[in-house]
């Protein structure tokens, strides 16, 4: 019990003092996860919207597969990217393994199906409402995609948030392709796992506190934007 007490106290003082090691880990985590979500959004949002408006044979199977990919275990995503980027792999020559870039790629692969699947769900409801009117205007389904994305922008904030939550919370993928190298590829989740196993509870707890705070803050921001948007549109 005393251990826990002193660990919490030390954790708070680490955060309060903006400990440089802690700060570096936090900033790298944010950079990796935010970039990964951005990249995943560039692919996942249009893909999800297109899937909402397109009708083709096998569409049901594609939707089912996408939904299944939402549950892709991070370690599996990590393993796939590891195989691609390892020296013997097809992209080994790029020398990206154990770099932040590799971590971004792995998280983007993990998050893109989540964004696409959730976007499809949101956009399908909107398309049901808009389809006749947009066809009356002469808009093709492909032309409807940007319209739907823009008009569903506030609902998509929640989708992006789900993606960011997944990226910032996962350990397995960044551990495998990043290697948890101190000062280079160590992020909050991998540091927490390592420090806990080493018994350095204060740093692990401090990181846990920061992680929770960031997730809460991002959620609050998105919620605020969404409420404001819904009032205005």
């Amino acid at each position, binding site marked *: 019990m005393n251990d826990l007490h002193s660990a919490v106290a030390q954790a708070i003082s680490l955060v309060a003092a903006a400990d440089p090691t802690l700060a570096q880990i936090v900033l790298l985590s944010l950079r990796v996860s935010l970039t990964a979500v951005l990249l995943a959004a560039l692919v996942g949002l249009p893909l999800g919207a297109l899937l909402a408006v397109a009708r083709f044979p096998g569409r049901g199977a594609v939707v089912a597969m996408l939904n299944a990919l939402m549950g892709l275990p991070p370690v599996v995503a990590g393993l796939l990217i590891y195989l691609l980027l390892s020296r013997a792999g097809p992209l080994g020559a790029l020398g990206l393994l154990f770099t932040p870039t590799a971590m971004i790629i792995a998280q983007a692969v993990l998050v893109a199906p989540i964004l696409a699947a959730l976007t499809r769900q949101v956009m399908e409801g909107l398309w049901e*409402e*808009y389809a*006749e*009117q947009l*066809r*009356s*205007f*002469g*808009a093709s389904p492909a*032309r409807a995609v940007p*319209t739907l994305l*823009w*008009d*569903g922008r506030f609902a998509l904030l929640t989708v992006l948030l789900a993606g960011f939550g997944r990226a910032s919370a996962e350990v397995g993928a960044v551990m495998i392709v990043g290697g948890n190298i101190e000062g280079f590829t160590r992020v909050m989740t991998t540091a927490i796992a390592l420090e806990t196993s080493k018994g350095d509870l204060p740093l692990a707890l401090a990181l846990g506190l920061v992680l929770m705070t960031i997730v809460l803050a991002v959620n609050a921001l998105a919620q605020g934007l969404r409420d404001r948007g819904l009032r*205005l*549109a």
Partner: protein
Amino acid sequence: MRAPDAILPLRAEGLGFAAGGVAVLHDVSLTLAAGPPTLILGPNGAGKSVLLRLLHGLLAPSAGAVRWGGPAADPRRHQAMVFQRPVLLRRSVLANLRYPLALAGLDRAEQDRRAAEALALVGLAPLADRPARKLSGGEQQRLALARAAALRPEVLFLDEPCASLDPAATGAVEQIIQALAARGTKLVMTTHDLGQARRLAGEIAFLHRGRLLEHTPAARFFAGPATAEAAAFLRGELIW
């Protein structure tokens, strides 16, 4: 004052439509030419909305064909449709007006000119910057009409545009519809409201159970319909 016909006359030849194995429309043939509004009249479930969607091209007929007789290569660009429940984009009033104009390839200056003209027509100019979906029901339908009018269609389809509006809003919408008819737009409109049909119609197409029973000038239809079903409908009897 009217521009020469680009797409009219419209000929429906033996139109049939079935949904899920249930026939909704049987062998409907009619010709619509430029001139006063055509009101498609009939009880609920007669197939009025389906006929309108077939004519506009939103539905593909399971039998027959829709043919536009005018010289225009792309008839789609010369028609517009207003729905019973207005479908407004989650944007400002002005952005709603601009959207189809941009799709039609008009430049920004022309979009703004037409949007301003359409806003004036429906009396919504002071609300141009408001979110469209925060407007009242009547204002939303007037915006939908303005949006269609801004496209300057030769033919405007209206599917029960007043069905969910109160009398005051209905009056405002009818006034706009009459202004559009007066400037030469061919209106093709469904309604099950006899009073509205009397106020607006130049000619009546009477549908009953998916069949076109009459297509005559409004005056003749209201003076003495040719079929027993239409007579019963005019007497206000519950036919279906």
